[in-house]
């Protein structure tokens, strides 16, 4: 018996910008396995207090809606609906964007398999070198894995699994395999980007045992690099990859690269990045 199963996906657009990248990625995913897509359109002024608003004790109950261009949001919503219909994607839209309190988005992520954000649209507001508060807040607060998608990308045909021996890195590798079983067959590279060429990979046997079951086409490598720059160069050579990383802010990688590893790649090379943490 064929059972129709879907992924439940949230995609967040900031009010005035329609992220083509995020939509394109969802469309390509839908071809592999149907998705139920919920579009959330946020007025742009909300970024500042994104996840903090509604914290009844500390935050004032006031939503800083400064300059919501309703027309543009409406236009984006109808564009979203048209595109979904055109590509046969089952979808929902949160129309009540003005009242859509941001903690509600957090709640929404509890019941979703994946949250997709178009990174460039958010990076528009922030200088490239400074990390993006919105993205960081989302990553810290989302209760499901987050996929950050650039505007222009090739749909991933390779997986880059970042492993540092820590729990979050293994957790992310597992979650990606559960969510994208169809992509685990792609060539996958597990990188251990710590120490020198002769540093042992922590728990090498265990991680190989686990990962090779989920990702049959697996290569394990050490990257003896000291700065993020080399890694970024290396990543740039890999076209059409997706990066799977444990955490964004506090990971060992971020310490290693000064700026967060994931952040650097989002900025420089625009590869989709899948981030999951408990």
């Amino acid at each position, binding site marked *: 018996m064929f059972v129709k199963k879907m992924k439940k996906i949230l995609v967040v657009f900031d009010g005035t910008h329609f992220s083509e990248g995020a939509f394109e990625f969802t469309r390509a995913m839908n071809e592999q396995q149907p998705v139920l897509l919920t579009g959330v359109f946020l007025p742009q002024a909300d970024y500042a207090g994104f996840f903090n608003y509604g914290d009844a004790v500390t935050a004032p109950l006031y939503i800083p809606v400064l300059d919501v261009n309703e027309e543009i949001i409406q236009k984006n919503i109808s564009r979203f609906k048209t595109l979904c219909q055109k590509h046969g994607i089952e979808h929902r839209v949160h129309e009540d964007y003005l009242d859509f309190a941001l903690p509600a988005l957090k709640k929404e992520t509890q*019941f979703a398999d994946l949250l997709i954000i178009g990174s460039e649209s958010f990076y528009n507001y922030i200088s490239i070198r400074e990390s993006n508060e919105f993205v960081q807040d989302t990553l810290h607060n989302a209760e499901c894995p987050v996929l950050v998608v650039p505007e222009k990308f090739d749909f991933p045909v390779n997986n880059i699994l970042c492993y540092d021996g820590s729990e979050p890195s293994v957790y992310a590798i597992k979650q990606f395999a559960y969510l994208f079983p169809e992509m685990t067959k792609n060539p996958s590279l597990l990188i251990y980007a710590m120490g020198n060429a002769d540093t042992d990979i922590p*728990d090498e046997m265990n991680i190989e045992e686990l990962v090779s079951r*989920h990702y049959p086409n697996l290569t394990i490598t050490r990257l003896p690099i000291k700065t993020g720059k080399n890694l970024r160069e290396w990543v740039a050579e890999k076209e059409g990859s997706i990066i799977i990383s444990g955490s964004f802010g506090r990971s060992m990688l971020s310490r290693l690269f000064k700026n967060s590893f994931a952040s650097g790649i989002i900025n420089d090379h625009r590869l989709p990045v899948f981030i999951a943490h408990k």
Partner: protein
Amino acid sequence: MCTMQRILVAFDALDINLNSLDFACYISRLTDSKITGVFLENLITENKLIIKEGYDATYLKWGPDESDPDYVKKMDRFQENISIFQNHCVNKKSSCDVLCKKGSPAKELIRESRFADLLITDAQTCFNKKFSGSPTNFEKDILQAAECPVMIAPGHFSQIDEIIFCYDGSRSSFYSIRQFDYIFPELLQKKVVLLAVNFKNEKELPEIEKLKEWFFTRNAQLHFEFRHGKPEDEINDYLLQKNNSLVIMGAFGRSSLSRLFRKTTAGNILKSSYLPVFITHP
């Protein structure tokens, strides 16, 4: 489509529990996965100062006394249990391998659980007899610290006809069913009962629309069961009438308040471990 999972089954090295092995074999066939037997023993309590005689000198050593007949007997039993495990798996047509670990049971198992998709153990496994009763302290450590979902094997098992999902609107209760679905995508096609305590009807359940939407994407049929009263009593009461069911509990949450509540809930169900219980927490 379904990927192979890495499933660990934890046994007391000296007292293998065949019921949980049977259950593990079932899970292994269900997910088409190999099971890895982890044989745990508590050697730290065995360590003592022993006098060793070398070729030209006598020296002191801290460790298990390898010449002690009790120790030898223990090791023999350990080897015996490993072959019982292997033969059993062959008979049940499950592929298996064995991982021998020495040292503190809970600590080792937690380390291993990072690299596993599921950990199966039983409520009776008890290494340190002074923590008697079930769940033993060992179990509680595992439930809280395991880095993968834990399945408590039932005392007796035949099959799974029904999934009972204990829902209280908390973050971890929904998290657990999401993880359950990732590991056992086919099981949600069975009858799914949502068990809630102290809610009058469907409409009162927190986030019911989102919940239903998610179950819709999984093509699952959701049935509701409402109970009123003290949660742990009611859940226990309900589960006592059940056979061939699997219970999903999002237990051992983060906040201390919810931990207190859920600890007792999960604890009671484990004590009467006649149904398999799936536990994980964010």
